[in-house]
Structure formats: structure tokens, C-alpha cells
């Protein structure tokens, strides 16, 4: 069985647990919706201001929901010490990591699928003018968050202050990702959309994801094993 198929099985295991309880998806989607409501009161609602602020709103929402979802998903592995079982399973640790990251990406994407239309609807933001480009950048961003996030959420599994430390670790490391995501989205929702700029930052995100994929694969095992 290849590494990728094993990764797929591990991801499917996580997603099946989630499909049964729906705990993370439901709470995160609700959380994202609440954020959108707070945004609509916290920021001026005229079209010009929204064009400027909407990209940031979207990526802040992804950052917040991403870290909370990561923390909760890995808590599940901690509660019955199943992370140890996973690491002992006769599969390469690469597939454990890839499976985890894949499942996390799916969960955060599920939130994005709800948050983007909500932002567009409530704030009247032109987020859906370039659906393909926006989808690409959101997917790339979510993959990046999940990759780096899974490494550190797994590493922090046994640390008591993990809920506080996860964002402390992730946000400084993910600044380039958030900036690239915001810049792409800003170029797409601008009054005069600029696809060149959008694609520049999409490529940037692609390289970023590739670099951190390699790094995560390389470090995951030595970081997680005590």
C-alpha cells in the first residue's frame, strides 16, 4: 500500500469521526458566522471600505477557525492517547502526517465554503467575482495552514498550555501566507481587479506550500517522537 493511500485512509478515519459527531464543523462554521456578524458591526459598511477590508476579514477568519479546529482535532487524538497508537501503526510516519494534514485541510475548507459566501452576502463584498482564482488561493492557504499547523499541533499534544502556544507559534510563521492570501484576495476584489498581481501571490503561495510540505515531511517524525 503506498504512502498516499495510507495517508488517505488516516484522513478518512479523521473525517469519519467528524462526520459522526460533526462537532468541529458545526462549531467552526457557527464561529465563522459570528465573526462575520462582528465584522459587519466593527467596520464601516460602505462599498469602498468593504473592498479594502474584506480580504483581511476572510483571512483573519481562516486563521482563527484554523487554529481552533487544529487544537480540537488533535485533542481527540490525545484524549485516549490514540496518537501513540497512530505513531506505532505499521505505516510510515509520513502517511500519518499527510493524513492528518489532509483531514485538517478538508475541515478548514468546509468552514471557508460557508464563510466566503456569508461575507459576500452580509457585507456586500464582491468576493465571488473571480470564483476560480479565489478558490485556488483559499485552497492553497488552507493547505499551508494545515501543513504547518498539523506539525505543531501534533508536537504540542502533550504540552499543557498548547491552546495558547499554538497561535503563538503558528501566526509568526504563517505571516507570509496570510499576507499572500490577503494580497491575492485584495487584487481580486479591488475596484479594478488585477489578475497579474493575484497570480503572482498565488504562485508565491504555491512555492510557500511546497517548501513547507518538504520541511514538514522532513521534521514531523523527529518533532513528534519524544
Amino acid at each position, binding site marked *: 500500500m503506498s504512502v498516499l493511500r495510507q495517508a488517505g485512509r488516516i484522513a478518512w478515519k479523521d473525517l469519519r469521526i467528524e462526520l459522526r459527531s460533526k462537532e468541529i464543523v458545526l462549531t467552526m462554521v457557527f464561529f465563522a458566522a459570528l465573526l462575520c456578524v462582528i465584522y459587519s458591526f466593527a467596520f464601516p459598511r460602505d462599498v469602498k471600505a468593504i473592498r479594502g477590508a474584506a480580504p483581511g476579514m476572510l483571512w483573519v477568519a481562516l486563521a482563527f477557525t484554523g487554529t481552533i479546529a487544529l487544537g480540537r482535532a488533535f485533542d481527540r487524538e490525545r484524549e485516549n492517547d490514540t496518537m501513540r497508537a497512530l505513531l506505532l501503526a505499521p505505516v510510515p510516519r509520513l502517511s500519518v502526517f499527510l493524513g492528518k494534514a489532509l483531514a485538517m485541510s478538508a475541515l478548514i475548507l468546509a468552514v471557508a465554503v460557508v464563510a466566503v459566501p456569508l461575507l459576500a452576502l452580509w457585507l456586500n463584498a464582491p468576493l465571488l467575482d473571480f470564483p476560480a482564482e479565489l478558490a485556488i488561493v483559499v485552497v492553497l492557504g488552507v493547505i499551508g495552514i494545515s501543513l*504547518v499547523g498539523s*506539525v*505543531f499541533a501534533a*508536537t*504540542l499534544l*502533550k*504540552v*499543557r*498550555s498548547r491552546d*495558547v*502556544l499554538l497561535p*503563538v*507559534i503558528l*501566526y*509568526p*510563521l504563517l*505571516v*507570509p501566507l496570510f*499576507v*499572500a492570501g490577503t*494580497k491575492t484576495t485584495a487584487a481580486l476584489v479591488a475596484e479594478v481587479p488585477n489578475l497579474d498581481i493575484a497570480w*503572482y501571490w498565488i504562485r*508565491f503561495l504555491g*512555492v*510557500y506550500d511546497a*517548501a*513547507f510540505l518538504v*520541511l514538514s515531511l522532513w*521534521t514531523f517524525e*523527529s*518533532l513528534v517522537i*519524544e
Partner: protein
Amino acid sequence: MTKPASDVPEARLVEGGKLGGDAPDDKARASKGAPVKGSPLGLVLPIMTIVAGIVVAAAAWWVFVKAPVQYGYTADGRLNGSSLFFTQKIFYFHVGHAFMLFAAVGVAGIASAIFLKTRNPKWDDIAAAAVDEAVMFGAAVLVTGSLWAKAAWDVWWNWEPRLTMSLLLWLILVGYALVRKFAGPSADRVAAGMAIFGMVGVPFIYKMVGEDSHPPSGANGVVMNLGTEYKTAFGLSALAFLLWFLVLTIMRVQSTRAEREVRELRERGLDLGVLS
């Protein structure tokens, strides 16, 4: 390291201890009486400290006495009288500190990678020490940069690309320091991961910040066409801060190492029932 354990009680302590199966390197270190004195850096440090002191003093003299006061020139050579003058002296300290900030990110990243690979805590000490110093140096970069921005562009902070980059690197280092302090027993692993990821992220931050440079930064014009006196002052102060950084880092490594050794000895003592 291979010095035979001469004092009997300590040798027995190691041999009879429950932790006797540790790495040989560990044993050898634990069996030595005064670890810090015995370190190969024992003599280097005092000499380096003196040299660093002299160079720092020389740099200060050169910066404040020898180097003329800089009249601000704009990029096209016009005298930009209102802005810089004495404030330009900040430059010598600001850039020297910034170099060390960047160096520390590299040192911490590489040392952490070796630590993860070998699990030898020696390398972790180096990473931790470098980051500790870099947090202070980075704070100096940000404060002096802010003062510079106020003098040159009349704002305290204008997201000038290099200053932004310093801020972002500094945030990673502060995060590292927080992890070290609050992540409990696995702090070394988590922090090592953060240092490695941070180092790999540097080119991305660099690229990102470069693309995002909105305010016109006059610094290029000012910095690049310096006369010889300025250059000497700059070189001296950069060297001074390099030495200063090295001295501080070595001291920090030694104190961290001594702390760990005391802790390990104490654990052994507790295991044996010698200590209570």
C-alpha cells in the same frame, strides 16, 4: 571530555545511578566537577570579552568623535538639511544590531536542525542562547529603527521593508522564547521546530516584504553614498556588535549548560537517595 573521573563519590554516583545508561558524552560531562571551568571555551571567553570591550569602545569613539555629522542628502544629491544630522549616528547601532538579529535566526535554525537530528542538548543550548540574545538585539533594532523613522520621515513607524522584516523575525524569536518558557518538558523539541520553520520562512518574508514596500524609503540614498569615515565607523560598529553578540551568546550557552548539568546531577542524587 575524556578526563578520568578522579573524585570517587561522583564516579560512583554515575555508575550506580539509575540513569547510568545515558549517552557516554552525558556521563563524562556529569562526572566532571566544574563543568563550566572545564569547557574548551574557558580561556577564549575572557580574551574575547576584553577584545569585544576594546572594539566597542573604539567603535563608539569613531562613531561619535571621528565620523563627521551626516548632512542628509536625498537620492539626487540635494542637501536635505532638516532631517538627519546627529540622528544618523543611530545607523551604526541600528544596522549592527540588525545583522545580529539575522545571524541569530540562522544560528538558531541550523543548531535546532542538528539538535533534532542528533538529540544532543548541546546544540539546543546554542539555539536557545542565540535566540535569547537576538530578542534583546531585535528590540534594539526596532527601537532605533523607530527613532530613525521619526527623524527621517517624521513618523514613528512606517512599515519600511527592512524594519518590517526585522519586526517579523523578532516576532518569531519572541514566540520561540515564549515556547521555551511555557511548553514544559517538551519545550526543546517544540522550540527547535519553530526555529527551523522560522529559518525556512525567512526567504518568503524577505520576498513578501520586498513586494510590499509602499513608503518611499530614503534610507538607500543616505546609506549607500557614505564617505570613508562613515564606512570605517560602520565597519567598526558592526564588528563590535558581532563580538559582543558572540560573547553574550557563549556566556548564555555556558550558563544554560551549567543549569542543565546541575539539574541532571540533582536528579541523579534524588534517584540515589543522596539528596532529598
